[in-house]
């Protein structure tokens, strides 16, 4: 009886252990291919919705309003069409003039600070507004920008700053506040029309190649070229005629010998086919929007959010 039970148990067990034929390997499971199109990244609707890594990168691009003249900007047409240019070529000109002005109605304590009737144009920075004039040549101080400030907005200037001058060109655009000049005696002022003899241009000059490898076809790639943001004027007054370098930009050419750079002023410059002697093909598009504005506009989180949204394909 006990042996019959053992036989029955073994009969149940054996088919599994010994009698069962070898099973073929299961066919490999092939995962379905990923979709060809990458799922669109969600467009953030607020600064906080931007992924943290991107947000940190964008944060570094925010800029407060730098000390500079408030401009009345004339329109410019930049086609974005590439042209062969030599090093030292001014790529375009966009004309600007002071946006607003006041005139003094009382005399400051020194003649070179200005006089009754002196016209001053508006300059701003993140902390507020200043009103500036350029002095006539003075033996003790040379040419200087004198910028007044009405700190308590009571219609009377109560602070004065003396800023260094340009040795090459005496335009209305100043970019350095300078030092406190101790006004001592408050000076009154009233609004007036902006000066008409202070029209000047903003331009970008291609400075040429500054380094890089020379490919077999004679073009520079990768490499480095320089652009210069300049202001200048054709004024008949020799003191106001000339050009002044505001800022130089280093632009890296990639391995294809190409570069595209967006300057803070709104100009997009595309550079290609740079030769050893500096000749290059350059296209400029964009420009400062016409109307009141700045050469170096403030860059806020909101501006960068909009730029990021556009990059992700959000409608304008």
């Amino acid at each position, binding site marked *: 009886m006990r042996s019959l039970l053992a036989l029955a148990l073994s009969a149940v067990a054996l088919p599994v252990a010994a009698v069962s034929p070898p099973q073929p390997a299961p066919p490999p499971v092939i995962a379905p291919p990923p979709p060809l199109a990458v799922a669109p990244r969600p467009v953030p609707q607020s600064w906080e919705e931007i992924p943290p890594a991107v947000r940190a990168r964008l944060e570094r691009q925010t800029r407060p309003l730098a000390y500079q003249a408030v401009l009345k900007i004339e329109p410019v047409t930049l086609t974005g069409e590439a042209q062969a240019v030599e*090093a*030292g070529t001014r790529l375009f000109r966009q004309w600007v003039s002071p946006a607003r002005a006041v005139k003094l109605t009382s005399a400051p304590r020194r003649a070179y600070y200005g006089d009754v009737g002196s016209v001053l144009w508006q300059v701003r920075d993140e902390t507020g507004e200043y009103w500036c004039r350029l002095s006539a040549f003075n*033996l*003790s*101080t*040379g040419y200087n920008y004198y910028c007044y400030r009405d700190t308590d907005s009571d219609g009377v200037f109560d602070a004065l700053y003396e800023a*260094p001058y340009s*040795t090459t060109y005496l335009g209305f655009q100043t970019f350095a506040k300078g030092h406190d000049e101790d006004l001592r005696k408050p000076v009154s002022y009233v609004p007036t029309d902006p000066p008409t003899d202070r029209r000047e241009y903003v331009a970008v000059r291609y400075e*040429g*190649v*500054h*380094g*890089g*490898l*020379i490919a077999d076809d004679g073009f*520079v790639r990768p*490499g*480095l070229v320089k652009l210069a943001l300049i202001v200048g004027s054709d004024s008949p007054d020799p003191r106001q005629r000339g050009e002044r370098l505001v800022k130089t930009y280093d632009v890296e050419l990639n391995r294809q010998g190409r570069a595209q750079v967006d300057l803070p002023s709104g100009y997009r410059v595309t550079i290609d086919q740079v030769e*050893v*002697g*500096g000749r290059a093909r350059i296209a400029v598009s964009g420009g400062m929007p016409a109307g009141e504005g700045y050469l170096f506009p403030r860059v806020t989180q909101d501006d960068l959010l909009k730029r990021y949204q556009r990059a992700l394909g959000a409608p304008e």
Partner: protein
Amino acid sequence: MNRFGRAGLAAGAVLAAVCAGAAPAGAQTYTSRTWTTFVVNAVSVPDEEREAAPGTSLLTQPVTSTRAARLEAEAPSLLGMGSAKTFPAGTKTFGVKVPDGWIYCAVAASTVKWLFSDMTACYQDVDGDGAFEIVRNSGMPFNGIPLFVFQPGPPQKLPAPIPYTSLPYKEGPTVDLGFVWRPVVVKVKRDEPPAPVTQVTITQSMMTGDKIEGVTRAQTLSVTGGPQTMRQDGATITVLGLTPEGNLRYRVRSAMPAQIQPLEMVLTTSTYYYVVTY
């Protein structure tokens, strides 16, 4: 006594007296940066073991300006005393970028070496008609290198236009850019034997002939612990050791690829105004 003698002292005293009663009213300092570029031309160097004596170059490559031109007629230099008065037709000139275009310069060797320096005359084609109309006396070659001019002199009109032909930059005047090695000598006391050389310095320098003109960059390598490799601007040189005679055993793995390099001069000037009554 200073080089102006008693007259100089007297003038200095008068100036000091004038300034003594004055207050410095304003001082403004300006820093201007001027840059130029040059081309390091490629050379082919076999990768094989070599030897070089101390103070000689391990690798030398020709350097040119980024532009060049050839004078097609004899050109007056309009330089002063002690300089060559003319450049013969066929003289090669190197290009220098200036705010209003390009000037093409040639170096006039001094006719009295012990008294005068070599001077640079730079020609300019103002109207772009293929002939130079003005020449600018631009002083001594910058840092002794007859390829650089940072401050061109005032323009002088030439008696007659001088025709010229543009040349490929590779065919312009050249200087050498070399990697020159020297042993690092360890000082010992007078009665001790000289210490064995364990390190060498390799300096990348502009050269005119065997003369080094301005040190640019240097690296120090050991010569006792097996091969050591230095890399600079795409050149790769492996130092293998020293021979019993004191020569350096080395291999040039690769020369510098053809490239443009910048050279920048920073000039700082101050202007002082003195006011007697204020």
